[in-house]
């Protein structure tokens, strides 16, 4: 007997949470180096549960009743907050109510937050992806983190992260989404600063947290605006009020408020997504986040958490549909980020940073896809999210494996030619690189190709998108070059091993190579399988937000079916990039030096990471720092001075009384009796009326 969707939906987050609590409570004293066991077990359970749920959702979605927009179901756990009559004058948009009771709507709307989980195509695919990657990363980390002092702490954080992430993708309310949005941010902060003794790690954690605050501020404002506009924050229809992404509104697109309000909401949401998903101009935290343990980089900063922004924007597609301006901003931000990431990744020498910038760049691709705002664009963006999770996790874990063997060194200039030393890592890393570069038939090819094709298709309606199309191809070329640059620098050339690695650097243990192998297999097949066999786009468009007819009406056909031309071009581009990288880095180093000299300004620009950190320092950090110093001075000198002044009064007063403390007991008794005498005398002689 298989459990139903509600049970599974609760089980998936509950298992990691339980494991977290167990590890946090018993990890230090009892579990110690066995701390990974409860977490891995729980993640395995969650993964199996998500697979079962995926199957059931798929079955239900395809057999959905025809009048339903998409397919969804929700589980109410409990009521979290309720304020009756919170919004008194419902704007026009509220006149939507369930079952068409348009005039019987109450005059005042309650502010009500239920802890509601939802299941639909988008959620189930995200859940399956998140739990699968988490499971593999947890297994990998049990080898990678072995012997670390904070072993149990690491695994309890990982469990907490998976709990938060699964709650984030299954929440059916913007407030819940926000809560777990913050919770994954917290886990990210804790894990970036995992080795908090290292000042760089602590600083990186702080930076990530602060930059995310800017995005979350936007997200919070978006929430406020949505509440005053729509009178609810639920995704689904509940308690007689049409949810923002509920069936009622989706069935009748007129119920979405357009114009400036819509654009404002979308831009604020996008700001939130920019923070979490490291998009320009808030991308600066992600490279620094590589200070955390490598499994964390793979899980949180490549595969799952950073894609929360993509998920959120996808979820809010109906809102973006009423604001073409916001769509353009999303597309533009996505493209600019992709380009920036690609350019900077060209010259970085730190293996993990190359991958981090590549993540930024690929996330930019996803947003570009979402910004296209056709069904093809959005589904391809989600598809890229899906495939990217596999191969980017693979690349990071491969990088971690290299680091593990090299004694923690990540500078690619200090090692090389490791292909004989670490055969498994070499092969799996190659698969990851091919997938990232978008070589057929690897996973990245299918998804990236779909995005580029969607952009090209949109260009039929709006010629401006043609620039983005060419730009995206250039970025694809850059991707291929920097990917293989890193690959060749690490695994080819003369064999060099840094002295930190010790005399016998060797391949990583089985617990690390097995996840690598599994992920490599996924990187090979996952694109083609889901694209060709399962119809990822066909499935994902059964999500209510995407089954919206406006989305469908914009595009006649689903992109994945055609575009041989685009596929051919992008493959060609990828192979050219590979060739260039091979030419530059497999031969002697004179070509690289020559090229560097030729393109010196560009090289400096790229090597300095386009000087974003410096610009932000001058623009924001310095003024704020100066202000803080001034405030500090005011606090220290002025306010503390005042307080000290007040504080000096009691001692002065006390000094007046000090002579009374003579130490003679008799004197004290005498003073007391004099008090009594005076009191009685006053009472006796007090004039009474």
């Amino acid at each position: 007997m298989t459990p139903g969707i509600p049970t599974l939906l609760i089980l998936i987050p509950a298992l990691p949470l339980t494991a977290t609590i167990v590890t946090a409570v018993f990890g230090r004293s009892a579990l110690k180096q066995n701390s990974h066991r409860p977490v891995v077990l729980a993640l395995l359970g969650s993964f199996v549960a998500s697979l079962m749920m995926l199957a059931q959702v798929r079955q239900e979605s395809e057999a959905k009743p025809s009048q339903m927009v998409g397919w969804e179901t929700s589980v109410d756990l409990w009521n979290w907050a309720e304020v009756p009559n919170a919004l008194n004058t419902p704007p026009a948009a509220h006149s939507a109510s369930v079952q068409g009771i348009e005039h019987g709507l109450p005059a005042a709307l309650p502010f009500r937050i239920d802890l509601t989980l939802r299941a639909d195509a988008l959620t189930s695919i995200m859940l399956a992806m998140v739990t699968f990657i988490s499971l593999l990363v947890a297994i990998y980390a049990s080898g990678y983190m072995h012997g670390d002092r904070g072993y149990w702490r690491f695994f309890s954080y990982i469990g907490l992260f998976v709990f938060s992430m699964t709650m984030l993708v299954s929440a059916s309310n913007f407030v819940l989404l926000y809560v777990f949005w913050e919770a994954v941010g917290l886990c990210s902060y804790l894990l970036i600063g995992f080795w908090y003794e290292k000042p760089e790690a602590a600083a990186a954690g702080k930076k990530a947290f602060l930059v995310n605050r800017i995005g979350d501020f936007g997200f919070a404002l978006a929430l406020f605006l949505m509440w005053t506009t729509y009178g609810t924050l639920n995704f689904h229809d509940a308690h007689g009020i049409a949810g923002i992404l509920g069936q009622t509104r989706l069935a009748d697109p007129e119920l979405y408020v357009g114009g400036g309000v819509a654009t404002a909401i979308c831009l604020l949401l996008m700001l939130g997504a920019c923070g979490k998903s490291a998009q320009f101009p808030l991308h600066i935290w992600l490279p620094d986040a590589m200070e955390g343990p490598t499994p964390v980089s793979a899980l949180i900063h490549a595969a799952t958490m950073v894609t929360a922004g993509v998920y959120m924007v996808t979820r809010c597609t109906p809102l973006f549909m009423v604001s073409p301006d916001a769509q353009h901003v999303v597309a533009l931000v996505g493209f600019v980020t992709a380009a920036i990431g690609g350019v900077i990744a060209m010259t970085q020498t730190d293996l993990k940073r190359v991958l981090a910038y590549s993540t930024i760049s690929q996330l930019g691709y996803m947003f570009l896809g979402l910004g296209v705002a056709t069904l093809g664009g959005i589904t391809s963006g989600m598809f890229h999210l899906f495939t990217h999770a596999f191969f980017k996790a693979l690349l990071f874990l491969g990088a971690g494996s290299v680091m593990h063997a090299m004694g923690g060194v990540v500078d690619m200039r200090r090692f090389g030619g490791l292909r004989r030393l670490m055969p498994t890592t070499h092969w799996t890393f190659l698969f990851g690189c091919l997938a990232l570069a978008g070589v057929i038939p690897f996973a990245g090819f299918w998804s990236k190709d779909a995005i580029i094709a969607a952009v090209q298709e949109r260009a039929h309606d709006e010629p401006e998108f043609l620039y983005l199309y060419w730009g995206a191809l250039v970025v694809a070329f850059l991707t291929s070059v920097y990917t293989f640059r890193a690959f060749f620098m690490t695994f080819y050339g003369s064999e060099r091993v840094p002295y930190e690695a010790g005399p016998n650097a060797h391949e990583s243990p089985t617990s690390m190579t097995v996840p690598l192998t599994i992920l490599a297999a996924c990187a090979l097949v996952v694109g083609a399988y889901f694209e060709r066999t399962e119809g990822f786009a066909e499935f994902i468009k059964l999500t209510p937000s995407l089954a919206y007819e406006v989305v469908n009406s914009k595009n006649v056909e689903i992109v994945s079916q055609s575009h041989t031309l685009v596929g051919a071009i992008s493959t060609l581009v990828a192979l050219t990039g590979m060739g260039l990288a091979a030419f530059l880095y497999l031969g002697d180093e004179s070509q690289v030096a020559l090229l560097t000299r030729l393109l010196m300004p560009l090289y400096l620009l790229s090597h300095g990471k386009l000087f974003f950190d410096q610009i932000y320092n001058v623009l924001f950090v310095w003024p704020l720092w100066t202000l803080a110093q001034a405030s500090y001075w005011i606090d220290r000198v002025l306010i503390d001075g005042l307080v000290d002044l007040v504080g000096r009064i009691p001692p002065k007063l006390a000094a007046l009384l000090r002579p009374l403390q003579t130490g003679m007991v008799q004197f004290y008794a005498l003073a007391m009796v004099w008090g009594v005498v005076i009191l009685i005398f006053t009472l006796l002689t007090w004039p009474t009326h």
Partner: protein
Amino acid sequence: MDESALLENYLIVGALLFGTGLVGFFSRRNMIVMFLSAEMMLQGVSVNLVAWGRYHNDWGGQMLVIFILTVAACEAAIALAVVLTLFHKSGSLDIAIWQRMREENQPAYVDRDVSPDYQPDHQWPKLTPSGIEPKPDLEEITHRAHV
């Protein structure tokens, strides 16, 4: 008997006992005498209570005096213990020694009435020590509870 007059008389006797106790408590330097004076004040209060009890035809006054007796017994026990401790520390029953617990930088109370040619009233006879002087216990002398 005139009950009101009786009460009035007793109240004044109580006041006198109390006042005398106060004077003793304030002026005497010997801790034991100070406590005797304090007990005197309690006596004054007891007299008051008994008188009021009679006046009101109520047992409460006598009850309270019984409890005063109890408390006085407790007080005496504790007071004597404290006096003994203080005596052990200073070697004297003089309360003025403990003015060293006064606030910092305060001038000390100095006896001005001591006449330089002070002689004790009686010279007690001194006995010549006799017998064998007991040997000091070395272990007790060198023992240290804390190091």
